[in-house]
């Protein structure tokens, strides 16, 4: 258990016992992330990234002392909902930061925005809330879910792949990623394979790959599925005959399990730990020193989220009652993002650069994704035009 959690829950218990909101003058931020089950590593990165930014500023954001209340959604919609309503009703938080997964976001979205509390997603960026259902109280600091796959299609074009084997798990995010890739990829998709969620055994798919005649495979296999796929891909000896290109499959959360098998694999994303700018170098070294592992995109986006809130609270002089002023201050995105240029579109989803990445092994034996080149600048999602804001 992290000391931060202890303090936060301790404070929650304390205020519950006292039955008051004695610490009302502090800035209250609630966080709803997944800290149970296999995907807990993703939620932990978000907590750590946010906490790092908070510590760097002496526990204050925008000049105000912060009470951070971390809640675990356990990857169960009903739990997420209960935690979220408790944050807005019991704790009366000023901001909610969450979630890791789109389906958890779906569960907590309505009660939070209807209570006119600002909800900032440090990771999930579903199309659902990017178009018609965009909301004045909702911001996303990560990406729109389809974008990484769209950029992968561009990377495939640039790499000169003509035939690509596409594979994803059969659920909403999987279908979105395949759709995204197909949208920008100009070559031929030899096969489009959907596996069950949580798929264990990829040998049948690998056999299909080996006979497909494709130059490369594009896939989206987050978490444990990615660990299994990469290991089995390597084991089947396919690494020599085709390129492996993916999103959310070989990242800093899965590489400790994939190790050498993933080295050289291509990815697309909005950031890599070795992107060379002053803010990023400082962030990555401070993060590694504090937590002992290399931060992934989840931690980076949470770090940026804390800095975004910092800038908005500072700009409003700490008066959060005027929701329009807070919204305008958030929308201005007047902070230094560690990924470089960053601004919000009309739907409050980011406009940012996307890059080609590759997996490398560092001298100390740790693995991370590495910046190769920028593929597209100031890239906006394709749903923003449907948003009436």
């Amino acid at each position, binding site marked *: 258990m992290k000391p931060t959690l202890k303090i936060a829950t301790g404070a929650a218990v304390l205020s519950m016992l006292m039955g008051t909101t004695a610490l009302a003058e502090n800035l209250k931020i609630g966080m709803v992330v997944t800290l149970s089950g296999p995907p807990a590593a993703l939620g932990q990165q978000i907590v750590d990234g946010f906490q790092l930014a908070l510590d760097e500023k002496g526990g204050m954001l925008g000049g105000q002392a912060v009470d951070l209340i971390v809640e675990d959604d356990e990857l169960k919609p009903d739990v997420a909902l209960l935690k979220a309503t408790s944050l807005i009703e019991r704790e009366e938080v000023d901001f909610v930061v969450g979630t890791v997964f789109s389906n958890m976001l779906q569960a907590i979205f309505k009660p939070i925005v209807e209570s006119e509390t600002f909800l900032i997603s440090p990771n999930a960026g579903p199309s659902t809330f990017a178009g018609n259902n965009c909301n004045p109280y909702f911001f996303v600091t990560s990406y729109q879910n389809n974008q990484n796959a769209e950029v992968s299609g561009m990377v495939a074009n640039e790499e000169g792949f003509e035939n690509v084997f596409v594979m994803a798990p059969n659920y909403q995010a999987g279908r979105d990623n395949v759709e995204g890739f197909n949208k920008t990829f100009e070559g031929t998709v030899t096969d489009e394979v959907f596996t069950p969620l949580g798929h264990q055994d990829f*040998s049948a798919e690998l056999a299909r790959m080996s006979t497909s005649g494709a130059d490369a495979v594009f896939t989206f296999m987050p978490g444990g599925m990615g660990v299994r796929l990469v290991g089995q891909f390597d084991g089947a000896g396919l690494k020599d005959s085709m390129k492996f290109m993916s999103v959310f499959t070989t990242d800093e959360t899965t590489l400790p399990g994939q190790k050498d098998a993933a080295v050289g694999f291509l990815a697309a994303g909005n950031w890599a730990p070795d992107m060379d700018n002053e803010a990023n170098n400082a962030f990555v070294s401070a993060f590694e020193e504090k937590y002992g592992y290399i931060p992934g995109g989840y931690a980076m986006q949470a770090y940026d989220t804390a800095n975004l809130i910092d800038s908005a609270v500072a700009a409003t002089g700490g008066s959060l009652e005027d929701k329009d002023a807070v919204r305008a201050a958030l929308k201005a995105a007047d902070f230094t993002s560690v990924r470089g240029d960053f601004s919000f579109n009309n739907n409050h989803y980011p406009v940012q650069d996307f890059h080609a990445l590759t997996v490398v092994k560092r001298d100390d034996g740790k693995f991370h994704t590495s910046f190769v080149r920028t593929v597209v600048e100031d890239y906006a999602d394709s749903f923003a035009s449907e948003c009436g804001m």
Partner: protein
Amino acid sequence: MSLTLFLILCLNGLQYGLLLFLIAAGLTLVFGVMGFINLAHGVQYMVGAYLIFAFTGLTGSFWLALVLSLITALLIGLLLEYVVFRHLYSRSHLDQVLATFGIIIFLNELAKVLFGPATLSIDTPELLSGSIQLTEQLRYPVYRLVTIGVGLVVAVGLFLTISYTRTGMLIRAGSTTPEMVSALGVNVKQLFQIVFGVGAMLAGFAGVIAAPIFAIEPGMGDNILIIAFVVIIIGGVGSIGGAFVAAILVGLIDTLGRSLVTEALGLVFNASMANQIGPALASMLIYILMAAILVFRPKGLLPAKGAT
């Protein structure tokens, strides 16, 4: 669908089936002999996987770790039997379900606290890495072929033990008329302990051999437990032969179904429709099979004689 692909699917199905058998064997004996529903049996599978991970890290040798893991899995099984389960033999099935459910919750959380929530993996042992060219297009990892072989050997060994040894005879007798066995002066308590320990070790062994292929994560035993229950119900409670047939059947149907159903539906519906309902239907196949078998044979395919 090429013949090569079909062959690979069959091999995978066979391998999955044998893995299921290793888990189901202990489950069906404990259930059949002692009338004890042990939900925590799936956790033993997870324990086996974490043990091989920990011991490989400590000793650096897969083979040494394998031996240590099996011994530790056996000890953990016996410890659980001693501390909790033996107090539950005379209790109702629902009490057993509730108590063993509590143990699942505890061990899943303990694994998370000790090893972290992330997915872990270990390498296949050096000796068995690499793959064999079976046909022109078909390469199959050696490790998987070996696990198929080992699974078959264990199955035959178990079958012979149950059929031809004194302990096996007592187990068979104990599953039908425990009072009689006890009256004949056999130490039923000890018999139960043996069955329990071996069952736990087999599930642990399944976890050990699955670890290099699949990923190691908290809660990995929960879903396989339900499938193992499906297997023993289809096979008939208490019947090792039934468990074997059912395990292979379930392994093949599940593996083939996941690849073939969507394709088959694609012949009738358009692609996006097939992609939507295919996986759901494929996931349902083994449950449809079980329901159908139970409707027509309410005690399973090959029920142990006299079992209730």
